[in-house]
């Protein structure tokens, strides 16, 4: 078990290094010159050279990579060219917004997907078929389309929720952390928490609906299989109600395969935050990533891509460990 984990860690580190190399090389062949975009008109060639040296763009690509890698390993991600701020500080200030959004979406997706699967299993063939068809629809439509459909439905037709941003600045600005929702809940400021939550409703739903559909389909399949097992039959003969059968007996055995898939799908959800945050002008790392690319902000793009890669790899690792921990047969394998 320990060697397996160590092997995975080494492989993950290699993947992350690969991600860093790919993005570094890609960005260095960009035709657009980031320095040209930030100099004032009429700057002397010496000024340009000085600026180039300041951002470390005056050496060869392997040299630049080596310098950058050394910096990253000592916690220095460089300085953003467009925002002129420390990249690590920028990431730290935006990451909590994305994390709150992604985790809220994960929770909604698990609850919703689980509910669809359990209700579908209890309903039997005929009505369950209609639910399957609806779920198929949910499965086919990506977060981008959901986000815009929600803009039309809950932002314009029935304007129930705010369309942009993370919080109404008139409600509160005095936060100690960047976890607005968690902090306002923990300090009991419910009015503030409600405003933050209202801003999160649409982006959360847009991210959660496709994932809920995937969870529902896989969990329902696993539940259907579990319901045919002998222990369920035995419990049924002993007079256990159908609802308790599904909730107590089948669900416990169906969670394993669903968990593995949910982990992979969660990384897709995290990737989806990029465009969903953009649509709702939500100030997370995804929205910042699009700006960084448009502004050719090399240090910031590198930091962001590495951060996304790190999160993807950590999620996969965590899921593998959780699946192994839940399944005694894999634990000794």
């Amino acid at each position: 078990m320990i060697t397996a984990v160590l092997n995975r860690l080494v492989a993950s580190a290699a993947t992350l290094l690969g991600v860093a190399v790919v993005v570094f090389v890609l960005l260095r062949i960009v035709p657009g010159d980031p320095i040209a975009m930030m100099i004032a008109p009429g700057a002397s060639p010496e000024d340009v050279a000085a600026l180039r040296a300041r951002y470390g763009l005056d050496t060869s690509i392997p040299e630049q990579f080596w310098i950058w890698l050394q910096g990253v390993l000592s916690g220095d991600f460089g300085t953003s060219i467009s925002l002129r701020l420390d990249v690590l500080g920028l990431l730290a200030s935006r990451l909590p917004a994305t994390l709150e959004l992604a985790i809220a979406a994960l929770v909604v997706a698990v609850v919703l997907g689980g509910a669809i699967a359990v209700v579908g299993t209890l309903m039997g063939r005929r009505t369950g078929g209609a639910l399957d068809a609806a779920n198929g629809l949910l499965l086919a439509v990506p977060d981008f389309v959901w986000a815009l459909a929600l803009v039309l439905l809950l932002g314009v037709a029935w304007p129930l929720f705010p369309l942009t941003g993370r919080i109404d600045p008139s409600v509160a600005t005095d936060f100690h952390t960047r976890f607005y929702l968690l902090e306002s809940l923990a300090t009991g400021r419910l009015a503030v928490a409600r405003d933050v939550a209202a801003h999160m409703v649409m982006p959360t739903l847009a991210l959660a609906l496709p994932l809920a559909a995937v969870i529902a389909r896989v969990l329902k399949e696993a539940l259907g299989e579990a319901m045919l097992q002998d222990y369920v039959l035995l419990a049924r003969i002993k007079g256990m109600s159908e609802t308790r059968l599904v909730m107590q007996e089948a669900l416990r055995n169906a969670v394993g395969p669903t968990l593995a898939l949910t982990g992979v799908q969660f990384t897709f959800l995290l990737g989806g935050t990029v465009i969903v945050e953009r649509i709702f002008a939500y100030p997370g790392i995804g929205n910042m990533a699009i700006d960084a690319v448009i502004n050719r902000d090399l240090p910031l793009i590198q930091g962001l891509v590495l951060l996304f890669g790190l999160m993807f790899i950590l999620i996969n690792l965590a899921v593998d460990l959780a699946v192994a921990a839940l399944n005694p047969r894999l634990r000794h394998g």
Partner: protein
Amino acid sequence: MAETFVDEDGGAAGRRRALARALLAEPKVVVGGGFVLFLVAVALFAPWIAPHDPLEQDLMLATLPPAGFAGAEPGYPLGTDGLGRDVLSRLVYGTRIALTVAFVAATLAALFGTVLGLLAGYLGGKVDTVIGRLVDIWMAFPPVLLSILLVAILGSGLHSVIIAIAVIDWTRFCRVVRAETMAQARMDYVTAAVTIGFPRPAILVREILPNVAPVIIALVSLEMGIAIIVEAILSFVGLSVSSDTPTWGGMIAEGRQIVHHGWWVLAAPLAALFAAVLAFNQLGGGLRRALDPVMRR
């Protein structure tokens, strides 16, 4: 001799007929494929279908609502956008970009992914390890971010969008084709071909590939839906084709900005996008069922 020839020919035609029957018996193929054909027709005949020039601006007629709403003008059934351009005509012309990207990008992604997947699955060993590592690295990028990054590097435009989609989504094909190839390579008919002494490339192309093809065809259909979405996302961010070519994503971007006084500018292309993605999805699912000999039985 002549008789066998005729017989063989009849057999192939019979197989084709059986395949056509299997495809038409699958409602998902008929509905999804039917809508895709409709979109192809709209794209081909766009100049005859569109009531107006999609680029013609008339600020006197800006943000007219669609037919049936107060203030609508006859001749503009889906209303006009912020510059007074006819939404229906732009929608019709936008089909061209959407389908071009769908067909070309999905085919390219399938080509890369299939070649690498076949090699990884059949050769195994070091080749498999290297390709697998490459897939791992690719999967650690958020795809939307990677596509935006690639288009920013390649410069905006239709070519860049297509290349970006192919460069990102080959992994979908590679993973599936690799797994299928590994499964097929263990089958008896492959062992038989090896025993007879067929060269390895011939086995891969003539024996294994035809058996992996149904999965690839179904995936291509799904990938077309994905490609349409990615193109729309890139247009939305402002990185796809230049703004004077009508695209669904470009319309969506404009509609999102004026959503409070021109919701139809967003609703119309979004509905088109939704329908197109659903159609490709249904077609893909149906094809997988109809073409898979095991599932057909």
